[in-house]
């Protein structure tokens, strides 16, 4: 199970892009400049972006792309992939392809909502803590530490006991798990920036505390948030699917990639591989492209990488 993308909380430097030597040319060609300017010579970033765009498109336009009703049960059970059912049918005769498309959307949404909520809440907490400091900061950060040290399953267990299983609790779990990351991030930025001169200048010119917080501190933190966001999103999608696979997350009949794989395992012995393999493949591709993009963003936006 994915360790809720934690190593990304320790964003250490990333190496410089592999040295591309323009043979004896003093000024890089136009094409080179665009390529390097946009992607820093990182082909992988390009790949990730393309893949992600495809998957996002699917997620957004999912309902329009399905060939059959994803929830409709038919007697055409366990058919292998064919021209009519591109990825075959499952044990209830439902079209696997359509279910996969719809599930992708569900997973994206759940993970997306969870991470967005985490960003908003975490940023808010971090801003307050970082800016005001004091005992409030100590207390809240201690609390945040505790949440961060607990495994995903644990928090899932606790929350599901209270709220019951289902989509809402999974969104909540995702949110809770990721709040510490952003709280800490924003708090760090706030603490660093609040002593900068331009804040004092703004204060002198009569700006209110809240406007200082929102108009001056926030824009600078956008970069790290976006980086963490995409990496966390990748982990979130993975975790949502994993929890659903275990039966602790999204439950049938709501289509979900993890659930589909779980259902498929029962029919592996009969050779119906498409039920498990296909949704999983799509899931892996989604996570991979999100990770690629996050990695690429980290390389581009990380201020420590900026060379003079």
């Amino acid at each position: 199970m994915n360790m809720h993308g934690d190593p990304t909380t320790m964003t250490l430097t990333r190496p410089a892009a592999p040295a591309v030597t323009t043979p004896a040319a003093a000024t890089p060609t136009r094409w080179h400049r665009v390529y390097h300017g946009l992607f820093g010579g990182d082909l992988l970033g390009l790949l990730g972006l393309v893949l992600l765009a495809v998957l996002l498109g699917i997620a957004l336009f999912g309902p329009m792309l399905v060939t059959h009703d994803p929830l409709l049960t038919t007697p055409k059970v366990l058919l292998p992939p064919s021209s009519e059912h591109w990825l075959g049918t499952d044990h209830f005769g439902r079209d696997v392809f359509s279910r996969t498309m719809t599930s992708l959307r569900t997973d994206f949404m759940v993970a997306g909502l969870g991470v967005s909520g985490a960003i908003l809440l975490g940023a808010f907490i971090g801003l307050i803590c970082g800016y005001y400091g004091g005992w409030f900061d100590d207390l809240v950060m201690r609390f945040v530490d505790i949440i961060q040290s607990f495994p995903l399953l644990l928090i899932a267990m606790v929350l599901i006991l209270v709220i019951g299983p289902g989509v809402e609790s999974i969104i909540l779990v995702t949110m809770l798990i990721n709040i510490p990351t952003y709280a800490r991030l924003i708090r760090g930025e706030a603490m660093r920036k609040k002593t900068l001169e331009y804040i004092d200048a703004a204060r002198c010119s009569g700006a209110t505390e809240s406007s200082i917080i929102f108009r001056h501190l926030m824009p600078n933190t956008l970069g790290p948030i976006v980086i963490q966001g995409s990496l966390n999103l990748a982990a979130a999608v993975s975790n949502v699917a994993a929890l659903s696979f275990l039966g602790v997350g999204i439950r049938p009949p709501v289509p979900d990639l993890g659930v589909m794989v779980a259902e498929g395992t029962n029919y592996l012995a009969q050779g119906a591989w498409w039920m498990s393999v296909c949704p999983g493949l799509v899931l892996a591709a989604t996570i991979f492209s999100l990770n690629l993009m996050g990695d690429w963003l980290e390389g581009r936006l990380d201020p420590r990488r900026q060379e003079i």
Partner: protein
Amino acid sequence: MTSAIFKIDDLAIDSVRGGVRQRIVDGVSLWVAPGELYGLVGESGSGKSISMMAGVGLLGQGLEIASGTVAFSGTGHAAADQRRLRGNLARGVSLLFQNAKGALNPYMRIGRQVERALRRSRRDVDVKAELTELFRVVGLNYGDLGDKYPHQISGGQAQRLAMACALATNPRLLIADEPTTALDVTTEREMLRFLALICAEREMAIVLIAHNLSLVSEYCRRLSIMHAGQVVEAGSLASIFAQPLHPYTQGLIAAVPDVDEPREVVPLAGSVWGGPRNVARCRFSHRCALARPKCNAGRPPAIEREGRTVSCVLYEEVPA
């Protein structure tokens, strides 16, 4: 010149970051005689440290050798063969850094660190005795400090310790990269006096890299002055100071306040790295009051004149 212990010829280094290539060291040449205290002066970013690091095979990341040869004790290699040059480090070349505390391994007791350097280069030696002696030479007590960690000693002590490590390998050449910049004035004096002392005692050549011309002028007989990756003037200190030829040198000297002769202090205009970067030209031309079109037409020639070499078109002999 054949007896030079260290010689760099036409060293050129490019920075290759993000696919963009920039020349940051452009045709540096110098030579150091055995047992000589040689000065290498330049503003921050003039490429003096990078040149020396390249000369001992410690070129940093994102940098590439474009041309040049380096010779140590008569054996020359292409500068691009960094690996080969690194081999010299264990056999006769040592370095000293500006950040002494940072140069020491924070996880290891300092006695052991010096011991490691010692064992690396000298096998059959009474380690304990040698260590005690090394510490004594740099003015420290092995018994007191041997078991301590770097964070437990002062900056001055750390610098001495780094010196002990450097001397442990019994080098013929020591490259001291701004060893005193981080020290206070008194300690700085002590350190430089010490350097001059061991230079003479051990007949060990030292390349003293500094950005302070007056500092270098007290201890070095010969020096090179660098600007933006080019050597502008090099040779005997006496002749350079008596009559600085290169506009940059003149500017440098004019910018230093003189206690004995009160005069107007004129700082240099412009910045080191202004002007086009990847064009072969004199890299001082954009700051030079005497600049002419010829200055930007190519790398300025190195002209021998009155006991030094000056790289400036002003001094080109005009055919009669």
